């Protein structure tokens, strides 16, 4: 006599299983459509059909694309692409090298380098640009000390300066993706190269090949982030000197009347470029299997460096972090501690007054608290959705649902934040949205939804590399040994990707805390997010107060990241923590 665990008829079980599956899938897709698809499609459709959203008379036209391939728009687009390619190449190469030294060798102070990379991640591009500006601008920190470097200043406000800062900004994105994949890569592959006559360099090349999914993900993310970046553009770009697409778009949105069809057309072109890059990535990886994380994966042993190599590697990392992080941090901290910077005073002095002012004044302090709350909510929701999405994307089943999700996420990752925000304004202002009960325009909810939507694509991409390493048999073993799909997730999938998920949470939190473009277009009355608050204060030439908030915001983000990883180390079961750890 055969026994089953439950006496429910098989047919009933099957139909309830199907119903449950359908409702979960439907809910997931409802979220994806509401967050990503509807705003994107409605806004992009303005480029082809201005009348659809009352932006013109034509139901279908390509006229909106005309300005895109002329004059300033065209030049800006070319500049953006050139910067994207350069930043993606340099940032990924640097990130791979740093990750290798930090994770696979005994180079000193590895934890500090790791922390510095995270700190760089926290700093939005506009803050890094501001830091450099504060130092080198006329009347800036160096000027106060009697140093003037006009050549550096000229380079800063041009392609070299923008490319440099965008590369700096790209490094942590590529580093996170590559290092997470590197943690899961056991040392047996490296040993196999060495015992078959390969040198250390050969081993490095082989490991790089195995890390290709993560490297390509890194390249694609940095490229997309660079051409979508608005922060550096808002500080360093100008029509007369070196303009990029997002800045030109911003000016178009700010102009009267607003040229939304043209903005949408530029977005379509930008999007096409990003999608092409990411499609090239997926094509390059087609048919290769990089599933290397399994129950048989052993912890890695660190390569023992000679004293000379240690000095060289440490020197290299110190130099790198010095220019990526040190310069802007010095700029921000020094500016925040100089009384009267930005004013016409001639007697400057060192003080903590700016910090005291920020902590005492609700006007200065409230944006930080408001943004911290929004960032926490955004990070939690985005990470859950990203984990589900990335699992779907690496599924071996080549379903339509998977292809569609891949397409939408690829499309969204390339959309500049400011355009995304414009899409939200359009979508949630439409009469049909009001009729459906979505009275969201001008609310905190819409701002947070937009934050989630902008964070989801890159958060998903950052998890895909790890999900790719997860062997299907681990979850299959769970199912055949009595676990439901949900419990399989909780008991096996989650623990195995806990560290990358935590990293993704921190990434999203920090990115949202200081987010600029969406905040600028969607902030509700009386609730200025941090970036808007800083912008306003700097706009009033209170450089000391503005930079003090910057510094406090970054410190607060570091504390949150520290607490998150501290809690993980303190509370996570031992088995969770030993995954991906190297022994010295």
């Amino acid at each position, binding site marked *: 006599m*055969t026994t089953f665990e439950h006496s429910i008829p*098989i047919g009933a079980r099957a139909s309830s299983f199907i119903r449950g599956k359908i409702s979960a899938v439907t809910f997931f897709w409802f979220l994806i459509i509401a967050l990503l698809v509807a705003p994107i499609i409605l806004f992009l459709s303005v480029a082809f059909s201005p009348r659809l959203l009352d932006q013109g008379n034509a139901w279908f036209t390509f006229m909106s694309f005309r300005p895109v391939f002329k004059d300033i728009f065209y030049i800006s687009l070319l500049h953006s692409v050139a910067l994207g390619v350069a930043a993606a190449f340099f940032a990924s190469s640097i990130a791979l090298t740093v990750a290798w030294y930090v994770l696979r060798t005994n180079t000193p102070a590895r934890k500090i380098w790791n922390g510095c990379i995270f700190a760089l991640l926290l700093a939005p591009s506009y803050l890094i640009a501001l830091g450099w500006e504060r130092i080198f601008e006329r009347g800036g920190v160096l000027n106060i000390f009697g140093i003037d470097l006009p050549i550096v200043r000229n380079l800063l406000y041009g392609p070299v300066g923008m490319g440099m800062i965008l590369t700096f900004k790209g490094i942590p994105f590529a580093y996170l993706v590559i290092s997470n994949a590197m943690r899961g890569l056991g040392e047996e592959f490296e040993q196999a190269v060495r015992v078959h006559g390969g040198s250390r360099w050969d081993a490095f090349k082989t490991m790089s090949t195995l890390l290709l999914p993560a490297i390509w993900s890194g390249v694609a993310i940095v490229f997309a982030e660079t051409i979508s970046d608005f922060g550096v553009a808002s500080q360093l770009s100008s029509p007369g000197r070196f303009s990029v697409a997002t800045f030109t778009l911003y000016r178009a949105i700010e102009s009267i009347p607003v040229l939304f069809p043209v903005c949408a057309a530029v977005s379509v072109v930008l999007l096409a470029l990003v999608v092409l890059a990411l499609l090239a990535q997926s094509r390059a990886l087609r048919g290769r299997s990089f599933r290397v994380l399994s*129950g048989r994966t052993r912890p890695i042993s660190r390569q023992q460096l000679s004293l000379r190599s240690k000095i060289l590697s440490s020197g290299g990392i110190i130099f790198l972090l010095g220019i990526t992080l040190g310069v802007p941090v010095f700029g921000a901290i020094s500016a925040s501690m100089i009384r009267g910077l930005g004013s016409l005073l001639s007697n400057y002095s060192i003080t903590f007054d700016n910090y005291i002012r920020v902590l005492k004044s609700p006007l200065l302090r409230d944006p930080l608290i408001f943004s911290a709350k929004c960032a926490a909510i955004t990070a939690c929701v985005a990470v859950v959705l990203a984990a589900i999405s990335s699992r779907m994307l690496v599924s071996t089943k080549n379903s339509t649902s998977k292809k569609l999700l891949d397409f939408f996420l690829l499309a969204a990752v390339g959309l500049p934040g400011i355009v995304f925000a414009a899409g939200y304004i359009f979508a949630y202002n439409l009469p049909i949205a009001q009729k459906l009960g979505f009275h969201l325009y001008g609310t905190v909810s819409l701002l947070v939804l937009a934050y989630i939507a902008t964070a989801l694509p890159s958060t998903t991409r950052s998890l895909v590399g790890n999900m790719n390493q997860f062997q299907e048999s681990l979850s*299959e073993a769970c199912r055949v040994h009595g676990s439901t799909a949900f419990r399989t997730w909780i008991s096996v999938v989650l623990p195995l990707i806990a560290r990358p998920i935590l990293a993704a949470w921190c990434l999203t939190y920090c990115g949202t805390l200081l987010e600029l473009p969406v905040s600028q277009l969607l902030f509700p009355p009386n609730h200025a997010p941090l970036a808007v608050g800083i912008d306003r204060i700097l706009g009033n030439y209170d450089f000391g107060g503005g930079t003090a908030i910057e510094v406090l915001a970054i410190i607060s983000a570091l504390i949150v990241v520290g607490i998150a990883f501290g809690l993980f180390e303190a509370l996570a079961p031992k*088995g969770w923590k030993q995954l991906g750890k190297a022994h010295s």
Partner: protein
Amino acid sequence: MTTGHSIKVKNATKSYGALTALNDFSIDIKPEKFTVLLGPSGSGKSTLIRSIAGIEKIDSGSIFLGENEVNRGPINVAPEKRNLAMVFQDYALWPHLTAAENVAYALKRRKLDDHKVGKRVRDILERVGLGEKGANYPHQLSGGEQQRVALARAIVARPALLLFDEPLSNLDADLRERLRIEIATLTRESGATALYITHDQSEAFALADRIGVLRAGGLEQYDTPENIYHQPSTPFVARFTGLGGSFTGSVVEVVKGVATVDLGGSFLRARTNEKFKKKDVVEVLLRPTASKFAASNTKVGSTPNLLAGKVLDTAYRGRGYEHLVETKFGPIASIFDLKQRARGTNCTIEVDIQASMAFPATKKVE
């Protein structure tokens, strides 16, 4: 003791794009039997076992576990509801859990209290020789130990069906032999039905109550190990379960199920179930045990089942030597003798009728 599932697969078909993994496949497995599915790569055995486990879903046909239909059309009972367990080829041990935690995981479905779980985990780990290693993580165990943990995890919850997906293929020969015995013993003790897939015929014969030979998504033969070996239904089954040699010739006569075949001057007599006519072209397949060296003074002449040859190679096998002999009709392998014959020595081979089988040559497709 657990009561095992019977397994019935009816007309199952499963494709991956243009590739058909299961092609109108049917099999009926009795409860509490140890069945081994044997076949080369791409024969569909992994797809079948994964479909039975519920990890894959067949495109058409149906699967029954006992009286319950678990897969047909939209019906697809989730794996965790099928009361089975599986040992994976790559072990699939969860790297964040210790050996004991891996084993205990499978007991969660039984909803036992912690004390009972602890006892059963300790007992089973002891039983597989890992009593001292419960606190070790998978990466701290050897390959054989990891597979033992996987085996313990599979049987600890006493499921009605145990599935084995080539569990020994990653292990060395000595370990494979030892674990094979443990699998056979523990599985039979548990009372569960066992379904085991492999491409290794010696593993199949050692373990099985019944063997199913798969080919291109279909079932070629399903029978006892003895019948599979002595009465293979097709040349494919014969080849896949071990051959010492094969020759092509024409039928001279068939008398009482024994065909006399002319190889071109020499004659072989072999068993057959076919109704051959005179001069039909046939293939004679020899089991490795079919051939032995005849006495050195034996004259070949026209005596059936004697073939002249020359030793090409020899291999030491512990209790004696195996030889590869080249005849003018083709090579014969695995000819055993206690004494070693030097390479290049002329010899006479005597072929056993009972271990020789004649099949129509036209059926030879592999």
